[in-house]
């Protein structure tokens, strides 16, 4: 359990799938559309729905590893969607060129918001939680100002393809998400970057004394988180080609935090697991689908997620762990119980 912190996530994921299978034995069936070669079925739907969550969860993992938090991802999604939709609704063509420009523009604005977060956290030294709360507040307002409070729509086939298209039958969103996750994983695991991020989360002062410059890394981490949130915003607006300024990305920060903690990354910072967060994102997408499938009103999903997050927080808490450790064995006392005490500050 210590080696694979996300084992419970996998168990829960399988449990949810079993529940669905009991309701409908054909739930996991994948069919191939004869004319287009597209795969369809619930598992493909889950993959498609998990792509945006996966994006923000991966960014959030890095931020949380530095002992930070990014509450602004949902608002960044809305801003990104608003920028791209507003740009394309002013372009009449609907060609691939304007789709690319729209996407790049959206990502640039997202990166700017990430820079603001990063600078305020690292150079000014504000608490991550309040910094990103401010950008969350202001970002949602910014999205509304960009579209003048309207839910802007646009028509652009190439842009729409990003969210609804398929390559070899697989949804494009999932492929793009997979590629981005692979790139991030390569960057943090094949270079020293991951270690540096972890060391900042474990002990910022020791990290600085060891010659790591926290400022650059912190800014980079918040930019990555915001850009990935921007990608998620493009995904979720492209599927309907409309940005709902009040709704796009609402509560996305909760999904991302949930995915990260389900994946076994501690909110206290330090060691992180990207694989775990990806599994967490898949679990959340499955949970969302299951709740709809069991015909529970989808507005009730936050309650279920809250219960899940409370349970996970309890499992992570020292008190409960100590209880488990004591019951498990007396041969290895307190070996698995972390004794960090300073982790509770918000």
């Amino acid at each position: 359990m210590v080696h694979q912190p996300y084992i419970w996530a996998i168990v829960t994921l399988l449990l949810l799938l079993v529940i669905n299978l009991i309701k409908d034995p054909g739930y996991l069936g994948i069919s191939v559309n004869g004319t287009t070669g597209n795969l369809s079925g619930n598992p493909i739907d889950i993959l498609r729905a998990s792509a945006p969550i996966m994006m923000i969860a991966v960014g959030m993992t890095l931020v949380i590893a530095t002992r930070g938090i990014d509450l602004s991802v949902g608002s960044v999604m809305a801003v990104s969607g608003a920028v791209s939709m507003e740009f394309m609704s002013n372009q009449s063509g609907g060609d691939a060129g304007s789709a690319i420009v729209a996407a790049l523009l959206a990502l640039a604005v997202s990166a700017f918001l990430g820079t603001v977060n990063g600078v305020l956290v690292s150079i000014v030294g504000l608490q991550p939680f309040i910094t990103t709360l401010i950008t969350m507040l202001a970002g949602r307002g910014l999205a509304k100002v960009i579209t003048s409070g309207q839910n802007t729509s646009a028509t652009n086939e190439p842009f729409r393809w990003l969210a609804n298209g398929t390559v070899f039958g697989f949804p494009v969103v999932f492929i793009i998400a997979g590629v981005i996750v692979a790139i991030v994983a390569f960057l943090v695991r094949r270079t020293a970057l991951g270690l540096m991020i972890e060391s900042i989360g474990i002990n910022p002062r020791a990290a600085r004394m060891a010659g790591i410059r926290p400022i650059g890394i912190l800014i980079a981490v918040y930019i990555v988180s915001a850009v990935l949130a921007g990608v998620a915003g493009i995904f979720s607006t492209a599927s309907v080609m409309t940005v709902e300024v009040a709704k796009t990305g609402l509560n996305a920060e909760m999904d991302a935090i949930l995915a990260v903690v389900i994946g076994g990354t501690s909110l206290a910072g330090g060691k992180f697991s990207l694989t775990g967060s990806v599994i967490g994102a898949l679990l959340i997408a499955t949970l969302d689908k299951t709740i709809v499938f069991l015909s529970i009103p989808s507005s009730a999903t936050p309650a279920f997620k809250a219960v899940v997050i409370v349970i996970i927080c309890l499992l992570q808490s020292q008190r409960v762990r100590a209880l488990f450790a004591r019951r498990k064995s007396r041969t290895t006392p307190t070996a698995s119980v972390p004794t960090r005490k300073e982790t509770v500050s918000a």
Partner: protein
Amino acid sequence: MNTLTDRPTPDAPVLPRRSLLSRLTPNLETLPTLAAVVIFIGMVVYGEIAYGRIVQASTISNLLINNAYLIILAVGLTFVILTGGVDLSVGAIIAISSLIGVMLANSGWNPIAVMVIMILIGSAFGVFSGVLVQYFNVQPFIATLAMMFLGRGLASMLSTTPERLADDSPIRSLSTEWKVIDGPKINDLITTPNVLIALLVVAAAFVVLHKTRLGRTVYAIGGSEQSALLMGLPVVRTKLMVYVISGTLAGLAAVVYTSKLGIAQNITGVGWELDAIAAVIIGGTLLTGGAGFVLGSVVGALVLGLMNVLITRDGSIPPEATTIITGGILLVFVLLQRLVVSRKRKT
């Protein structure tokens, strides 16, 4: 600026005796609160010059009537933030509490019982958050974020459409308008039971924070939890208590808000936790805890309320931009706090 320290600071926590030299320099701890007061006065003056009809009885009455719920929320959050925590669940508590309240009232429950239940719902959420934070070491904002989602989710399960309180419901009597001074035309000084409730809450919070052992412990925990523990203060009980106070006051704010509007919905109160936090921070309470004033939070709430009035009067600022301005003000005050704290470390 030298005269600033001569002003009586009515709700200052017990400060050590200061030498003559330090008396002449402005007190850093009261600086953010003074800044908020200055901004409030500045806004009033600007509003009066630019739009007129700000300094008059009816505007001031409406400011208090419309922001009674926010003042109550901000008072509750002051307790939590003073200990270095935060409570994000207050908006969701208002949603579920007012929804349940309206439903019970419409099905013929005794209005007094309904109001008590509404307040107790808030207390229950506060107990949950407090237990998670204190006994299981969950970070305050994660614990209360979970409570926020739980509250909203439960409210959505109950109803997703607006529930209307019956027009003759006794709960509405809390928002009866009493004319205190009958001014010319519509310029009356009006008050409602809601405003009185809010003022009572402020007065009670003031007494608790500055005159009781509980209040002293709240400040001590915010200053340094370790020291408070070593001094033998009841840290566990007090930290649990502040979340219960915050939750209970959120329940009370639900009563106040419902009686005024008469409508409850699952999306009532979205983002109010941010308004309340902003009010507390603008009012000069340090986000890291240990320093701040409950009266400052009231000023903070009034600054936000007045800002809305001015934006409405101005008309040229799109209402969508309100949250950007709130965010901007919040940022300025957090930066100001940062400055104050770093100054304090140097001295």
